[in-house]
C-alpha cells in the first residue's frame, strides 16, 4: 500500500499535476505518525509513511492548502473523505484545487491499547498487514493481531467507503452497519444521577488544551467564539465544572449536523475523555428524530439543524425518549 501510494505521489508531483502532497510522516516514534506536506520527490522518498498508525484525518489541512497556488494531492481515508465532502458543502475547501486519492482502510491501530496490554519500552511497531510486530528496547519482538488493537472508532466503523475521490488505491469499501451508538445507549440507560457523575468524572479531567477543537474538521471557524472576547463567552482554561460543561456542550452543538463522526476529538484528547460520545449523542438524536443523516455523505442534503418539517417532534420528546430519570 505504502509503496503504491508513494509511487503515485511521485508520479503526480513529477508530471506537474500537483504541487504538493498531503500525507503522513513518522513523528517521534514509529507509532506516532503525523500529517505532513511534501513538496519534493526527495522529501517523499525520505519520509513518506503509510501504515496502521496513520490515523490523523487530513481533510482539515485542505482548508488552507486548497487556497494555495497549484493543486494539492491528498490521500483520504474513508473518514477523511466524509469530512472533506462536508467541508466542500460548507465552501471551506476548493475542490478544484485538490487531487484526491482515496485509500481503502480496514481500521487503524491504537498504540495506547498496545501499551495498555503491558508491553513496555516500545521501540518500533511495524505494520505487517494483519499483524503488528512490536520491537522493544529489551530487544524482544512480539507479533500481535492488529484486529485486537484497533482504535475504538474503527471497531465501530460506520463506513469504509471513500465518498469523494479522483482515483482509488485499493478497493473502495461499503457503508457498514455499526454499533457505534451502543455506548451512547449505555449511558442513556443510566439514571440521571449516574449520567451526571459519569460526565463530571470525564469532563473534570479536561485541561482545555483545545486539541479536540483544533483537530476537528468541523471546527474550522476563522475565530472560535471561545477565543473571541467580543462574543461574551470567551473563555480559556475552565475555572470550574460549569465552564467544562459549557465548552463541550457548545462545541458539540456547533458541530451538530456537521460532525461526520470521524472520532478525531477522542483520539487526540490527552486526557482520554470520550468526547465523540457527545457528538454521537447528537447524531443518534438527529437520526431518530429527523431521519437518517450522515454529514459529508453528499453535497445536497440539508443538515438537520438548518432544516425542518412541519410535524417535527416537540422538545418534550426528551421526557419520553431521553435517558432514565
Amino acid at each position, binding site marked *: 500500500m505504502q509503496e503504491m501510494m508513494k509511487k503515485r505521489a511521485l508520479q503526480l508531483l513529477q508530471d506537474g499535476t500537483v504541487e504538493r502532497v498531503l500525507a503522513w510522516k513518522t513523528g517521534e516514534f514509529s507509532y506516532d505518525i503525523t500529517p505532513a506536506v511534501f513538496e519534493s520527490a526527495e522529501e517523499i522518498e525520505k519520509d513518506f509513511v503509510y501504515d496502521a498508525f496513520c490515523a490523523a484525518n487530513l481533510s482539515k489541512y485542505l482548508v488552507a492548502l486548497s487556497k494555495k497556488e497549484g493543486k494539492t494531492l491528498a490521500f483520504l481515508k474513508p473518514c477523511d473523505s466524509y469530512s472533506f465532502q462536508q467541508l466542500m458543502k460548507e465552501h471551506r475547501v476548493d475542490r478544484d484545487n485538490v487531487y484526491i486519492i482515496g485509500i481503502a482502510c480496514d481500521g487503524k491501530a491504537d498504540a495506547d491499547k498496545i501499551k495498555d496490554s503491558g508491553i513496555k519500552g516500545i521501540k518500533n511497531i511495524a505494520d505487517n498487514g494483519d499483524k503488528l510486530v512490536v520491537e522493544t528496547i529489551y530487544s524482544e519482538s512480539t507479533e500481535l493481531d492488529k484486529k485486537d488493537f484497533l482504535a475504538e472508532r474503527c471497531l465501530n466503523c460506520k463506513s469504509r467507503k471513500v465518498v469523494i475521490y479522483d482515483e482509488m488505491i485499493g478497493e473502495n469499501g461499503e457503508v457498514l452497519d455499526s454499533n457505534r451508538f451502543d455506548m*451512547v445507549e449505555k*449511558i*442513556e440507560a443510566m439514571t*440521571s*444521577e*449516574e*449520567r*451526571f*457523575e*459519569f*460526565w*463530571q468524572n470525564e469532563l473534570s479531567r479536561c485541561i482545555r488544551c483545545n486539541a479536540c477543537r483544533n483537530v476537528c474538521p468541523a471546527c474550522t471557524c476563522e475565530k472560535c*467564539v471561545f477565543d473571541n472576547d467580543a462574543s461574551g*463567552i470567551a473563555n480559556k482554561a475552565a*475555572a*470550574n465544572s*460549569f*465552564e467544562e*460543561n*459549557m465548552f463541550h*456542550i*457548545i462545541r*458539540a*452543538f456547533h458541530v*451538530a449536523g456537521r460532525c461526520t463522526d470521524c472520532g478525531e476529538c477522542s483520539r487526540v484528547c490527552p486526557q482520554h475523555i470520550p468526547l465523540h460520545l*457527545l457528538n454521537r*449523542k*447528537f447524531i443518534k*438524536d*438527529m437520526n431518530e*428524530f*429527523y431521519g437518517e443523516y450522515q454529514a459529508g455523505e453528499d453535497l445536497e442534503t440539508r443538515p*438537520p*439543524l*438548518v*432544516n*425542518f*418539517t*412541519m410535524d*417535527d*417532534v*416537540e*422538545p*418534550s*420528546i*426528551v*421526557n419520553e*425518549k*431521553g*435517558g432514565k*430519570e
Partner: protein
Amino acid sequence: MQIEKKEFKPTIVAFCCNWCSYAGADLAGTNRLNYPADVKIIRVPCSCRVNPMFILRAFQRGADGVILCGCHPGDCHYTTGNYYARRRMTLLFSMLDFLGIERGRTRVEWVSAAEGAKFAQTMNEFVETIISLGENKRLEDLRCKK
C-alpha cells in the same frame, strides 16, 4: 443552634417571542392572571433567536429553570423560525439530559397571543416543577452565587 430554613425562591428565565408569547404574557397581565414573580421574561424577536448559549448562561448566572415560548408551529411571524427553534431546543435538551442535568429545568411551550391563560398556567406549572427539583446544582457556577 437552630438553622433557619430559608424558603426556596427559584430564579426562572422565560424567553418569549415578541409576536406571540410576549403578547400572550401581556394578555395574562391584562386579564390579571396570577403566576409567580420568580418568572422574569426576556423579549426576543422570535424563538429562533434563542441561542443555546443564552440558556447555559442563564444556568451559569443562577437560574434554576429556563423556558422558551414561541408562536405555535405554523404560526411563526417569520414563517419558519419556531421550526428551527424546535429542532435546536429538542437537541439541546436531549444533550442536557444526556449529561445528567435534570430535564425538568428546561422547557419549550408554544403560546399564542390569545393564550394568556395558557401562559399563566404554563408558568405556574413550570415554577412548581422547578421548586420540586430544587436549586440548580448540576449546572451552577459557584462564582455567580449570591
